[in-house]
């Protein structure tokens, strides 16, 4: 019905990932994401905008830190759903603590960072520090 879904290489990669998950489970290791949640960054003249996909996370347990003006750290924990009397059939969604740290391209004002959690996405607005804002220099004749 959906012939375009046949992606041999993708299936192989998926198989490797599943195998690695099984190994972790076998040896009692807590599964962790390789790099933490993925992040997109945008910038305009006044702000830097960051977005991280954090579906099903309690926003109260998400920590956002800005250190040294340009080190952004987002950390928190994802928990597996707990249903009374239920048996697990398949587990693909990652659980456990996650940390994501990036160096922002410019210095930001850490006191004015706005963070909101909408539809499972953490949206950050980080105002650029005055020194980092673009400035128009007039050329004297």
């Amino acid at each position, binding site marked *: *019905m*959906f012939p*375009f*879904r046949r*992606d041999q*290489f*993708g*299936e192989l*990669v*998926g*198989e490797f*990932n*599943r195998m690695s998950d099984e190994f972790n489970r076998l040896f009692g290791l807590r599964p962790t994401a390789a790099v933490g949640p*993925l*992040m*997109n*960054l*945008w*910038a*305009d003249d006044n702000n*830097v*905008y960051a*977005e991280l*996909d*954090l*579906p*099903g*996370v309690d926003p109260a347990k998400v920590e956002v830190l800005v250190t040294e003006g340009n080190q952004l750290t987002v950390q928190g924990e994802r928990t*597996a*759903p707990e*249903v*009374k*009397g*239920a*048996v*697990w*059939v*398949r*587990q*693909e*969604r*990652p659980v456990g603590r996650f940390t994501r740290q*990036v160096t922002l*391209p410019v210095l930001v004002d850490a006191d004015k960072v706005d963070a909101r*959690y909408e*539809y*499972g*996405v953490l*949206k950050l607005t980080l105002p650029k520090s005055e020194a980092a804002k673009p400035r128009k220099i007039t050329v004297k004749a």
Partner: protein
Amino acid sequence: MAEQALERANGPAQPIPVEGETRAVTVAPRVDILETDDEILVFADMPGVTAQDVDIRFENGELTVHGRRTASHPDKEKAAREFEVTSYFRSFQVTEQIAADRIEAELKNGVLTLHLPKVEAVKPRRIAVKG
């Protein structure tokens, strides 16, 4: 029984380009599946999707979930891009052990929860032994 009831749950697929949109991709959401005596529960990660943008269909024994997320900040300069998920799609084969007319779904914090109730005939039953 759940593996039979959901005969095939496609694994997370690699991004598939959507026709007509240069950077748009479709991915299969990651799912957790749990089974209780009464129902099968499916949790699917679909961050950025609102309840209006999700389409769940049941047809010919196939349950399909399609979600669309809109691009944020389309007008701004991108500083770093690690994901470009604009659509989610995944399908499940559902057998007659599931009461298709009573399937329910809810979406909260980017997680879609599907309740697939079992038909009465396959629910486990406790048989009382007469003395």
